Structures are given as C-alpha cells and as structure tokens.
C-alpha cells in the first residue's frame, strides 16, 4: 500500500525537491515530496512485515493445520480440530493459563508497589542519592539467564544462602526451594521481583520529576500532610504512566519465558509452566507445530482481550485530574 499512495499524489507536487517551503510542512503537506515519509518508514515497515506480520499470519495458518514433524502422515487441513482440543481436551492448557494469570498478577502488582515505593524513596534529597539510585536500578540491565545464574547460586541447598541461614539457626539444612512444589512459586516470584522492580522504579521516577513542585508547596500551606499530598497530587499525576507501564509489564511478564525456562524449566511437576512455556515445549520439543500454533493464537487473543479490557476499565488517558 505504501507505493500506491505517492503515485496517486505525485502529480500534485511535480518537481519538488526535499527543500520544502518552511512553515507549510504540515496541514496540506504540499511543500514536501509525498514520497519522503513512506521512504522513511519503509525499512521498519518492510522488516516488520517480513519478520513479524508474516510469522503471525503463518501461526494463524498453521493453527488450522495438522502439522507435526513426528507424525507427517497426518499433516493437512484440520479445521478447528486444534482449537477443539485446546478447550475441551487439554488440562495442561488450563493449568498453564491459571498459572500464567497468577504469575502475571502477583508479579506486576508486587513490582508496581515496590517500584513505586522505591521511586518515591530515591526521589527524596539525601546524601548518596546518585549512588543509591545506580545501585537499586542495576538489576534492570540483567538478563533472565543471568538472573537464573545468580539465584541458583543463592538457592543452592549446599552452598547457597539457606545453608548459612541454617548455620545461624534459621530454616533447615538441605532445603531446595526450587524443587519443592510448596515453595517454588514464591522462590521464582522473589527472583523475578529482584529483576523487575527497577523497571517500574525507573519509569515512575522519570514521571515524578515532572510533578510541579509548587503544587506540593501549595498543598502543605493548606495543611495537607504527606499522605494526602501523595493521594491528591502524586497519584493522579502518575496515573497514566502507571496504567501504561503496568500494561506493558503485564504483557511482558506473560510472554517472557527466559527466566522460568532456565530456572525451573516449568517444574517441579509442571507447577511453574506458563502458557508460553507450554507452547514452547509443545512446539519445540514436541514438534507439534500445528497444535502449538493454535495455543499461540488462543494466547494472543486472550492477551489482546485482557489488554483492551484493562485500558477500558482504567479509563486510560481520561481526564481525571
């Protein structure tokens, strides 16, 4: 569609060079070649068409096919067979969806709370603030695999922190929090919090800087305490940033598989398998691309639906100030 538009309008602006007349650039747009914006978005557009849009479409296509490398004799059009199987005959789908929801809600709400607290904290003026900021934000830059590396050393039953805690009389020896189905959830939650809180802290701190200082002064003149200032000035100001960052983070936490893949592999006994992890196992290890594609499609629809619902419910961008 990109090439068609300039062709249709090229006649109106014959012989124009890139030296457009200043001041009339927007609006009619007749002063600059119509082709320029299309040329500018072409690299990004083509890359995204080829490596995002095409794979997405092929996932939709495969979701209607039987396509299993280990059972090639069944390959072919499947209609809605895969989807029927997802919804009626797959307890693993339901389990992983439930765990995904639990995982995303727990992570995002805890990360938001801690990140907000942290941002308010390092927004104060105190000695050593720059160093403190750098240190508390540093896990932001750490990858899922590196997080796994670090926390495996900490959780290791014979050499990890629990051993030293046991030496000091706290807990028991030989506790492996990652292989016990009772403790594994909070173990992975804490691990992901370690890496995830700085994201919120950075975004919220950035937004805090733009709250006009005189609002606080006026409020304190009127006798409003710190809590009321926070509720009536800070929170409304942060509202849009919080809504957007929680949404981005929720999608990211839902989709992200690096940490769980390397830390628990979805175990023990599958209790930390998120939907994407289940899909990855089905597609990559089980070689059942058709079924994995149907799961992906379902995951995508659920994600989109939840996001729209969230934006509606939270009245994003609405004038609440």
């Amino acid at each position, binding site marked *: 569609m*990109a090439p068609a538009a300039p062709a249709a309008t090229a006649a109106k602006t014959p012989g124009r060079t890139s030296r457009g007349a200043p001041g009339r650039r927007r609006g009619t747009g007749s002063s600059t070649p119509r082709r320029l*914006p299309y040329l500018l978005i072409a690299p990004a557009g083509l890359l995204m068409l080829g*490596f995002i849009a095409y794979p997405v479409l092929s996932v939709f296509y495969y979701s209607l096919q039987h396509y299993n490398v280990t059972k090639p004799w069944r390959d072919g059009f499947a209609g809605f067979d895969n989807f029927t199987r997802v919804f009626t005959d797959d307890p693993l789908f339901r389990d992983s969806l439930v765990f995904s929801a639990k995982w995303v809600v727990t992570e995002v709400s805890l990360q938001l709370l801690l990140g907000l607290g942290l941002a308010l904290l390092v927004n104060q003026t105190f000695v050593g603030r720059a160093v403190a900021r750098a240190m508390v934000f540093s896990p932001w830059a750490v990858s899922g695999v590196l997080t796994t590396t670090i926390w495996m050393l900490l959780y290791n039953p014979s050499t990890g922190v629990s051993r030293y805690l046991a030496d000091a009389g706290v807990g028991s020896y030989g506790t492996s929090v990652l292989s016990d189905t009772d403790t594994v959830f909070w173990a992975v939650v804490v691990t992901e919090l370690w890496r995830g809180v700085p994201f919120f802290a950075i975004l919220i701190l950035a937004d805090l800087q733009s709250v006009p200082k005189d609002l606080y002064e006026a409020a304190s003149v009127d006798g409003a305490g710190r809590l009321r200032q926070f509720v009536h000035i800070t929170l409304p100001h942060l509202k849009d940033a919080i809504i957007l960052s929680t949404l981005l983070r929720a999608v990211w936490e839902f989709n992200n598989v690096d940490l769980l893949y390397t830390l628990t592999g979805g175990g023990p006994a599958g209790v930390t398998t998120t939907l994407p992890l289940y899909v990855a196992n089905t597609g990559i290890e089980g070689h059942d691309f058709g079924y994995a594609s149907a799961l992906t499609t379902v995951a995508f629809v659920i*994600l989109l639906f939840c996001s729209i619902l969230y934006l509606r419910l939270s009245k994003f961008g609405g004038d609440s100030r």
Partner: protein
Amino acid sequence: MTAALAETGDRRTAPPAGTPVTPQAPRRRRRTRAFDEVPRWQIYLPLGLYLLFTLVPFYWMLLFALRPAGSTSLVPWPVTFEHFEKVWNERSFGVFFQNSMLVGLATLVTTTVIALSGGYALARFDFRVKNAFMLALLCSQFIPGALMLVPLFEIFRNLRMINSLESVIIAETVFQLPLSIILISGFIKNVPVSLEEAAWVDGCSRLRAFRAVVLPLLRPGLIAVGSFAFVHSWNHFLFALMFLSEQDKQTIPVGLNTLIGADSVDLGALAAGGVIAAVPVVIVFAFIQKWLITGFSAGAVKG
C-alpha cells in the same frame, strides 16, 4: 503561612485554659517538615533493606567467581582467577563474548538508524498509512517473540541464515524496533519544528537541518534507545538458542544456559560466566542511568 501553621498548631496543642501558649517548639518542627523533608531514618532504613536485597545476589556471584573451588569463606580472599580462565578458554566464553558483542553492537546500530528514520516520519509528517503504522507498532508489543520461534526459524532456514549471527541480529532488531520508533518519535516531537524551519530558511536541506539541529538535541533519547537495544540483544536468549546451533556461533546467554544445565554444575565456573555476562551491561548501565531517567521523562511514553 506562619499564621495558618500557628493556628493549626495551637488547635492541636491547645492547653486546657489560661496557660500561655509557647508556639516555638511545635512551630519549628512543623516548618522543617512542611515540604518534602522526611526524617532521615525513614529514607535510610527502607533503602538499606532494599539495597541488601539488590546487592547480596550480586555479591554472592562475585564470591563464587573469585574464591577457590570448595571454599566456604564468605569473603573472596585469597582471590583466584582460575574460574575465569576455565570459563573463558575451556568453555569458550571468549568466543561467546565476541559473538555477543557483535550481535549487541550491530543491533544497536541498525535499530537506532532505522528507528530514527521511522520516528522522524511519525513525528514530522501526516501521511496516509500513519495511523495504521502506529497501530501496527503498538500491536506488535503484544506479540510474544517466544511464540514466533518456529515460523521465524523456518524463514531463516529458507533464507539460509541459520547458524549465522545475522539471523539473530535481524530478529533482535525487528523486535526492538516498535518500541524504539515510538520512543524516538516522542523525542523528536519535543524538538520544536521552528528550529528546523530556521535551518531550512538558511538554505539547509532537510537532511542537513536534521543532522545539524535535531540530532544533537536527541542525544539523551538516542543513548536511551541505543542502550536498550544493546542490553536487550546482549541479554536475549531464545533467538540465539534456536537459530545458532554451532558451538562457535553461540552467545553468552546460551553459554550460561549450557553451564546451568550441565550434569554436575560447576558453581565457580557458572559464577565466573555470570560475571562475564554482567560486566558489559553493568558498564553500559552505569554510563546511561542518568540519561535513562531524563530520557524517559523527556516525553517518551506519553507520545
């Protein structure tokens, strides 16, 4: 203000009757606490606790990387570099490091250049597919890269790019682009058009005006976007895992994963590998963290 404070102060400490009010003490305390003056312990105590949570894991990794195998000392002394030598040479982290660096820098450059061009178009022009393009950028945020692995693998196989770093660079760039374009177009919108127009009047071409006027002002934003791209591609794991199967093509996260999954995990080697993985991003982070905050507040997400 003083009057208001005195009034509320009086009301709260209102003495029974007749006794003269001594407003000095409460008034002074209130005045110092009036704005955002928070008692020091209310800052340092929670901050100290959180720093403990953040830093102990890093320290733990350094400890394992620097102390001899079998030691249970809580201080890495005497320091040994045996684990680093082992990981760097025997476990080919030297090669992985080179590959990761190559992927990271290439992704940084391609992402920044392509996003600059796309971001400029979004910020400065109205054109027919603009809204559709914006929508595509936003929607792509919902697409899980992990779930695109199989179709992407097939594409790269058809392009005969499996086992070449280019496949990873392309995939990283593509999934980094949407957010980068949105961010950069936000930064460009913050640069007044009049500055560019003044340059055009002086006879600059659009490109020259952009380079001379807009680009210098975009520095904090470009640093934020570029470092995002570098850090993400340095850290990202699944694309490299899927597309690069030859040992000498793999990247640091894949190497780490191999160490994690080894039958008997060599904790010293694992920790040393972790330190090697951490050093570049920690340096980048230390360098950019101030720009990160200003970069974001410069308009970023608000578009």
